[in-house]
């Protein structure tokens, strides 16, 4: 057992937990933040992605001790002051989810990609960089569109996906 402290969604938390506790277990079971989903438990699917000091990570493959003293953001912490994050809005706008199980991980991964990717975001880049997030429903098309749309909004750039540009003009 160890006393683990970290900042989660801006709030300082401390709990006594077993050393073998995974970050996802800490978030879901101790803090009751159940937005972070356990999809595969084998580091493949990306449903469990959170940010640790602003960097995306699969929380099913991080021990609480490895996140101690750090700042963790989960899907519950993405909206600010009741206002959805632009990528959350874009997921709704572009119908980028069906069952929604993969969605928290997709949004956390996409938000980090938009915030940190050094180059231009285009369809190819988004598909390559989102390889660690699997979706069994949507076929990815609308997920990619949503990330491109939110990326353009956040970065103040033009959308580089032609199908999306025409959609926006019509819409």
């Amino acid at each position, binding site marked *: 057992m160890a006393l683990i402290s970290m900042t989660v969604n801006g709030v300082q938390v401390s709990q006594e937990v*077993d050393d073998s506790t995974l970050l996802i277990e800490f978030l879901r079971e101790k803090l009751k933040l159940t937005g972070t989903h356990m999809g595969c438990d*084998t*580091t493949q699917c990306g449903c469990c992605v959170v940010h640790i000091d602003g960097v995306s*990570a699969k929380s099913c493959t991080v021990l609480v001790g490895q996140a*101690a003293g750090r700042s963790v953001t989960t899907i519950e912490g993405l909206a600010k002051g009741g206002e959805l994050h632009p990528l959350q809005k874009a997921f709704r706008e572009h119908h980028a989810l069906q069952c929604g199980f993969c969605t928290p991980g997709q949004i956390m991964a996409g938000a980090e990609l938009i915030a940190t990717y050094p180059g231009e975001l285009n369809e190819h880049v988004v598909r390559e960089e989102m390889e*660690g997030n699997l979706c069994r429903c949507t076929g990815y098309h609308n997920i990619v569109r949503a990330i491109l749309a939110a990326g353009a909004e956040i970065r103040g750039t033009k959308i580089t996906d032609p199908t999306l540009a025409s959609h926006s003009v019509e819409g």
Partner: protein
Amino acid sequence: MYPFTYHRPKTIAEAQQAFSEGMDATFLSGGHTLLPTLKQRLAAPSDLIDVTGIPEMQGIEEAGGFLKIGAATTHDTVFASPIVRRLIPALSGLAGSIGDRHVRHRGTIGGSTANNDPSADYPSAVLGLGATVITDRREMASDDFFVGLYETAREPGEIVTRIDFPVPDIACYAKFRSPASRYSIVAVFVSKTGSAVRVAVTGAGASGVFRLPEFEEALSADFRPEAIAHLTVDPDMLLSDMSATAEYRADLIRVMARRAVEKPGQIQSFK
């Protein structure tokens, strides 16, 4: 996972001490191989000693003709490093081809090298560049370090602290990856320094990463894809699994070696 005690030492000495005090301790770096293994209950270490908080095991520098990379440096840091891009662009590209971005944010060069997975990328660069593996007690040439499947010359409790890569004139890497696992089915790393050429293959060897002396000789005489077009690889020494047969891998090695040499200084990923 079976229960264990987690340690986060700040120095090599503290890590060594934690290891010697543990009943059956093991080191933890990025955890992206070890934690999935523990979840499957394939191992039950008493203590996990996290080496990523040790400052001297972090970071990238250029010194005395070598590119020196701390063992706990993540794949993403190696990929993005301007020093690595300038000195050995193929190594940066190799790091950027590993897994997916979340895996690259946590997995480390030292963990990958110490683990010596027969399909992992880094062992091919360490061997293909003739790097030196630095531990808390000695320095080992890459030719002596990789011993077999998941096996290295590391002794119990020996910590890989840094990898020193000699800077080559040319390095190139061609990887044929499994779209599902993202590991290599076959990948070939080629480097040239003066007239000396090294060719290392990962993903294919029945006993892990290995060199191809015949290919090296041919490319030393003539560093062009045509120089190795007539060479073949014996499937007897290769892996056969659900991704590919040994014969298919033998052929892929020839193709990847040729493609690597076609684009010196680059990394190419095929899937």
